[in-house]
């Protein structure tokens, strides 16, 4: 059990040669160790230069104009998102805006948990489609209103008339609208993670698309097939990147079991079908720099 293991782990380690075999299955490998630097090591460069400047009578105690100290940048962790920030608040804002409420099925990012819920329900839930044929299922998007409508058109009219929403409200797209954009997306190379103009304009800043799943069928397919295709496409990537522990195992665990207890759920809005392939979430156009 890991508790006992870590007791050993904590023991003040003697020589680095006598390593306890503690890294059996743990993905952690840090051990305190001395670092020996040879004469020509790059860490010694500045000091050596300073020394030789002194030898050559070029020493000056005045601090040179250029400020050489720099502060670490922050970077978005989401694979494929290359956004970099100089301040923590920028990072937080970026993350909360673009990655927090993401639908895994179609990669759309919604600005709030509620809108994400509604999106998933209306777009990816076949049960919803069935029920909607008989009852009013389309919720009003305004929190607290509580009204429900038979079709999305009815809801839209309600939003415009009662709540004075614009007719082109970005978070009330119908599924049919999305089709056009998807074909456009298919035509682009997606590896570079640059946000395309039409995404920004038509969908607004918070709804970004991923190219990988653009050929995902929406209607007429059972959930089973849909998921398995997705799974196949997405799982191929992480598996290829030598990952055995952790993530893919957990996901596969989630995927295949009906009898196993489900693995822990996370507050992150992405459902258990983790599918961040190579070309997943995009960031803004115009971000400075990439991750190292």
């Amino acid at each position, binding site marked *: 059990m890991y508790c006992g293991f870590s007791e050993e782990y904590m023991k003040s380690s003697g020589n680095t040669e006598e390593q306890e075999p503690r890294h059996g299955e743990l993905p*952690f490998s840090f051990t305190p160790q001395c670092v020996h630097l040879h004469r020509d090591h790059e860490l010694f460069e500045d000091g050596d230069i300073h020394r030789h400047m002194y030898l050559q009578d070029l020493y000056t105690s005045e601090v040179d104009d250029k400020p050489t100290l720099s502060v670490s940048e922050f970077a978005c962790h989401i694979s494929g998102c290359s956004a970099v920030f100089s301040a923590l608040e920028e990072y937080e804002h970026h993350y909360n805006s673009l990655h927090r409420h993401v639908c895994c099925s179609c990669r759309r990012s919604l600005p709030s948990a509620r809108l994400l819920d509604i999106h998933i329900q209306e777009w990816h839930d076949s049960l919803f489609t069935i029920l909607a044929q008989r009852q009013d299922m389309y919720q009003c998007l305004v929190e607290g209103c509580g009204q429900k409508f038979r079709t999305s058109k009815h809801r839209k009219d309600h939003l415009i008339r009662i709540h004075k929403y614009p007719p082109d409200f970005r978070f009330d797209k119908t599924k049919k609208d999305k089709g056009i954009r998807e074909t456009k997306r298919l035509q682009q190379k997606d590896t570079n993670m640059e946000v395309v103009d039409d995404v920004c304009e038509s969908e607004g800043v918070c709804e970004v698309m991923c190219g990988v799943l653009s050929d995902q069928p929406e209607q007429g397919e059972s959930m089973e097939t849909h*998921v398995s295709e997705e799974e196949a496409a997405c799982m191929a990537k992480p598996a290829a990147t030598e990952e055995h522990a952790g993530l893919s195992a957990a996901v596969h665990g989630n995927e295949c079991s009906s009898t196993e207890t489900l693995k822990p759920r996370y507050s992150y809005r992405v459902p258990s079908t983790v599918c961040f392939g190579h070309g997943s979430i995009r960031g803004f156009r115009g971000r400075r720099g990439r991750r190292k």
Partner: protein
Amino acid sequence: MWRLNKVRHKAGRQGDSLEELRLKRREHEKALRQARRDRQLVSKRLLLTEDEEQSEVTMDTTSGEQDVVSLFHKLQHSGPEREAHLKALSKALRDPSAQLTFIKQENSMHLLVGLLTGSDAQCRLQAVQCLHKLSHSPHTNVAPACLPATPYLLTYLSGQSTKFTELCLYTLGNLCPDSDAVKEKLLAQGIIPALASCIENQRYNLAVVEAVGFTLSQLLQAKDAAEKIIPMVLASSLPSSLLSVLTPDPKFGLAPAIECAWCLHYLACSEYSRELLAHGALLQCSSLLLSLGGAVAEGNREEGLELLVCPLLRCVGNLLSICPVDSLSSQVGDVRLVVSLCALLQTYIHTQPALARETAWVLNNLTAHSSAVCSALLTLSLVPGLIQLLPFSQGINTMVLRVLANIAHKKKEFCVQLARLGLLSTLCATLKMADQEMVTLSLEVLFVLLVSRPQVADEFVRQGGVSLLEAIQYNSEGEMRQRAAYLLEHHLLSYPSDCTVKTFIRIVLFVKFVPIQNSGVTNLICFVAG
């Protein structure tokens, strides 16, 4: 000897503005960096008399060359004007092309050596001045031409005349790096024993000590120094002599200590550095660092102090890495060395970040295998200062985080203290950094903290750590994903996230198993989803 407060710009002439001087310095620095990358970093020193310093080298090249030729001819005749001619020659030989002209004259070196070893003491002094100028030549073929003089220069090292000895030493030091042939000859002629006895006999003559240090450092920087030179030096009395003059003399200044410290650094980098340990080098350098750091902490900003601190740090750092763990406490001595090191860190972080990074490296080597040192960092309230350094990049934060990781790995009690001092909340920030090494290292530290006490895990969750780790699960780097996933699954499992229910539902909908047909189940889902 060199006075540090003199800012002499080699390339600068009167009339250069401050900006131009700065530009030249920067260019020069760039050239040095490139030379270092090519393993060709070499410097020479020119020792000038006071009146030589005053006068400018104003003559143009051609007249200089002509002077050299005519002076050479004049010198072939003995007489009372010889000394004056030599003095004039010495002045003329400051010019590089004149240097070339001189050595091309037939028997010019023979003449100079004759005067160097002659019966006239003043001529000897002037002759060595000429040789010194020649040794400073940027042309590499000048040094071999000076070889006939070297056995005499070495012999004169055991003499008593300070100025003369200094000039011999700097001349030899300048000649060393120019060619392998010159080095071989000097080694064969016994330069190392000569330096050893010189510094021993003249240990109170700090100008000579500085010169010996310089010359030795030139030898030790040779590319193949490890083969022959370093073993010979370690076998001699030089290490103990160098150590004995390390403490700077307040009146004379830092210069001799600086040279000796750099020699020790070159020795400590080598594979034979254990011999230095045997001489007590680690103890000596540590205590000196302790007092220097203390002085800096009290506000001492003596010019050039970093020129001494730098090689001392390196000695301590590298000697620590080869020091057996059980003799660590006796070799390091006073554990309050950490106070000095932290003071140096804070002082240099803005003015000389590279030196701050080297200081952090030493702290890493100190804390790696010593609980006592780690405990001292905590009890002496030095940890908050370290935590505050974690935003700074260029390798500083990774090294400081290693130090904190070393502390955390010693005892659970240390982990709890670290958490209480704010390390957890700082990790929440470092986990978002662009530097992958920082993130991975942060996860390592987090692991150790989380297993120490349940309260630490509680605190981490309270600070929003769970969603942070979740985000890392989507990172493209497997190293980070694995660690984050592990922490979530094994140590934060019991913490409910805020939307378990909804996510559960989504899983029920999306997971591929039996399609939902049972109306009871359907109703349940409708209820929850609605």
